[in-house]
């Protein structure tokens, strides 16, 4: 993404209008835009901390330049005269050297500059330092030039800047007179120039924030009420620190091994392989984890992190109750206070898990608002967190929510994919051809997929819940039917109406009954690395029976969506191919649903 410099600033309101630019310039050389060092200091104070502050000089002495660098202070120096190389070498901050371009011969000179950046401009008129005239950009095409050090100036304005960028691909564009009206900077023109130069605002959000604020393509971010920003930022810093701390990782893996019972087998499913008549089927056995599903991998990681941050109170949401049970379990283990929000509809269909949480000492709060399912439980958990943020950690159960949650949950769940990769290499000596996992918010899937993202030969398939069918009103097929939106702290794909109201999701599986999908999945769907298919309630139930009877493994309803999709996948695969299914959890919790839906089964 091309950076933007607004040059020749003299007034406060113009510095503020340039707040979305990457650099501002102060002219210290003779010019109608000249400012004193004192004035530049005052203006500089109004700019964001991460703004580059660039001083423009023409044949100034080293002392003058250094004085300005220290006093303002400047982060870069731009030279428009005949400054010798030895002066450029002495300047401690990065240097931009300006060149006027008339002919192809002038272009040759650019490559000889020892400066960090080269600024190209049309020849000046009254003063040196740019004229506001456009030079022939095509002079920069087809010459050997390092465009990553190229700064384009000269006659740019909001109407031509996009064309200039696409023709010359510069590191930065520099504008001064092009954002003026009657010789004075114009706030609206400044804003519009930046907008034009940076493309649409969404693209800019990613670009400007991708490093510190966790975006996956256009998805992610930290869209939370201001009261939570401190906690989110603290968590971001604490996780960054813990992630790189060998002791923390050791402790996390200790509990995974000694308490959860990892590593879990990658079981060859001989009878399913035979029955489906296609590829060799392997099952990643997250159902064997203590508490019965993959959720505990994340709960342990976050609970350790919470303690590291000095927080001994935990709030969580739960859909199917597996995350609630995992959280309640870990809170019992570590002696942490635990409150779990759960939709009343889910409480009805997952009574066993409610009882387990209570037995483990957690407080279960019934959420009667909305559809009384996972979305509403997340809302209440967020409200609880807003109110108790100073001493409480929100232990989100899926790869959702504001950054760093989607990244952190993925990392804690990546143990699934890492083990799978090692195991399949041991057993088969090669990577699988396809992997299928179910997606609600998407935590088991992203944990399984992530270690394989770079392995282009491995097809990755997510199975989302189609409920009664994607063409009915009752489904949770966010990637098939959803659109971009902000919910629960992140930009992601959500089910919503034309007015931007989030719709209720429907799935027989409480764990997939959510109208959003985590930001990384939304991104992987957009870029095509993962394909997502929708599985109906009926197809999932059929797969429950099939796997139970073929392999003696009763899967959770969520996992059954992956199994149903895998069966479809297997039809187009051959006997020498390998297909891995992530069995994210076991079916104990769903026994009441199975008993009801499968009544009359013989």
């Amino acid at each position: 993404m091309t950076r933007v410099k607004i040059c020749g600033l003299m007034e406060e309101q113009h510095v503020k209008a340039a707040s979305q630019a990457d650099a501002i310039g102060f002219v210290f050389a003779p010019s109608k835009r000249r400012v004193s060092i004192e004035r530049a200091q005052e203006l500089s104070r109004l700019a964001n901390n991460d703004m580059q502050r660039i001083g423009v000089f023409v044949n100034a002495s080293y002392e003058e330049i250094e004085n300005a660098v220290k006093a303002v202070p400047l982060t870069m120096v731009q030279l428009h005269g005949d400054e010798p190389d030895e002066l450029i070498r002495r300047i401690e901050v990065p240097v931009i050297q300006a060149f006027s371009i008339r002919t192809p011969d002038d272009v040759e000179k650019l490559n000889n500059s020892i400066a960090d950046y080269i600024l190209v401009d049309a020849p000046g008129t009254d003063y040196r330092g740019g004229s506001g005239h456009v030079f022939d950009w095509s002079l920069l095409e087809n010459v050997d030039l390092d465009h990553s050090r190229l700064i384009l100036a000269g006659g740019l304005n909001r109407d031509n800047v996009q064309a200039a960028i696409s023709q010359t691909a510069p590191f930065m564009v520099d504008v001064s007179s092009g954002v003026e009206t009657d010789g004075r900077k114009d706030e609206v023109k400044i804003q519009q120039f930046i907008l034009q130069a940076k493309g649409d605002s969404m693209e800019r959000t990613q670009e400007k924030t991708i490093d510190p604020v966790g975006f996956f393509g256009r998805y992610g971010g930290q869209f939370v009420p201001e009261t939570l920003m401190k906690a989110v930022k603290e968590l971001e810093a604490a996780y960054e620190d813990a992630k790189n701390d060998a002791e923390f990782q050791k402790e996390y893996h200790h509990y995974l091994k000694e308490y959860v019972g990892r590593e879990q087998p990658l079981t060859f499913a001989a009878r399913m392989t035979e029955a489906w008549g296609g590829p060799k089927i392997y099952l990643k056995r997250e159902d064997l984890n203590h508490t019965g599903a993959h959720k505990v991998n994340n709960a342990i990681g976050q609970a350790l992190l919470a303690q590291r941050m000095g927080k001994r109170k935990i709030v969580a949401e739960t859909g199917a109750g597996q995350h609630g049970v995992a959280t309640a379990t870990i809170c019992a283990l570590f002696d942490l206070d635990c409150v779990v929000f759960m939709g009343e509809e889910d409480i009805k269909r997952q009574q066993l898990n409610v009882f387990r949480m209570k037995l483990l000492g957690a407080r279960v709060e019934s959420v009667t608002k909305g559809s009384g399912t996972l979305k509403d439980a997340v809302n209440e958990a967020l409200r609880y967190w807003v109110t108790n943020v100073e001493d409480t950690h929100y232990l989100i159960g899926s790869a959702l929510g504001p950054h760093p949650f989607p990244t952190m949950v993925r990392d804690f769940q990546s143990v699934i994919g890492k083990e799978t990769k090692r195991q399949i290499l041991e057993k088969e000596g090669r990577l699988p051809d396809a992997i299928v996992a179910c997606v609600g918010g998407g935590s088991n899937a992203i944990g399984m997929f992530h270690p394989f993202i770079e392995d282009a030969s491995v097809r990755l398939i997510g199975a989302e819940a189609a409920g009664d069918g994607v063409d009915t009103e009752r489904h949770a097929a966010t990637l098939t039917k959803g659109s971009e939106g902000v919910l629960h702290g992140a930009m992601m794909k959500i089910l919503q109406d034309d007015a931007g109201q989030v719709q209720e999701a429907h799935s027989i599986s409480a764990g997939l009954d959510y109208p959003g999908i985590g930001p990384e999945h939304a991104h992987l769907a957009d870029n095509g690395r993962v394909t997502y298919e929708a599985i109906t309630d009926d197809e999932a139930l059929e797969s429950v029976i099939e796997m139970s009877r073929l392999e003696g493994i009763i899967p959770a309803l969520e996992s059954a969506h992956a199994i149903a999709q895998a069966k479809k996948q297997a039809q187009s695969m051959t006997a020498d191919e390998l297909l891995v299914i992530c069995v994210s959890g076991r079916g104990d919790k769903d026994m009441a649903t199975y008993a009801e839906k499968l009544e009359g089964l013989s």
Partner: protein
Amino acid sequence: MKRLAELKQAGHKAFVAYIMAGDGGIEKLGEQIQYLQERGVTAIEVGIPFSDPVADGPTIEAAGNRALDKGITLEKVLDEMQRFDFEVKVPLVIMTYLNPVIRFGAERFTQEAKKAGASGVIIPDLPFEHRQLIEPFAKQQELVLIQLVTLTTIESRLEEILKQAEGFVYAVTVTGITGSRDELAEEVGAFTRKVRELSPVPVYAGFGISKESHVDRLRDDVDGFIVGSAIVQAFHEGRIEDIEPLIDAVTAPHSV
């Protein structure tokens, strides 16, 4: 919005009323705005209902759900505002969660809000860091994007946020969601004093302000008050006149 700075200079306190647009039907919106401006409020926040209002307590959430049940959308509210046949004498600020704006289109939203007579926008789930999603469009329409600061806003961010503040600053006086409360926390006075020292624009206290005792406590530390849940509930129950003493307590000339 200039009026708010003038009011501050004149030493008067501002009273900002929040209403849920379409609670009781879209036709109530104009009536409520007229009533409030007649009663002397300084500005009015027009709330847009949202399905998942995580910054709001039960009163405003319930009002939002009533409005949603009547089919109220952002578009309908802006349309209705453009059709007002009375003179709007106070600044109107649209308060909405981010998703309806994204769905509507940020640029189109600012254009329509401007046509609807709005002076500013408040988006509680759009933090300062992501303001560029909206701010450039708002600027084009000369709408101010009101920033919120809270008791938990860390010092360095507080300074950054206030540096850019326009219109007024929304100082959230509780660590929590919207809604009436009996008491405000001890540290609120020190917090609003600090915000007021750093802010180039008037500072209004909001969230949890529902009683004259709250106003008395913070009067010297803020430039005005924002009252939401108490007004929303009073309109809903048809007893808005109960709010009048609170408006008077804020806006009446006060001898020190």
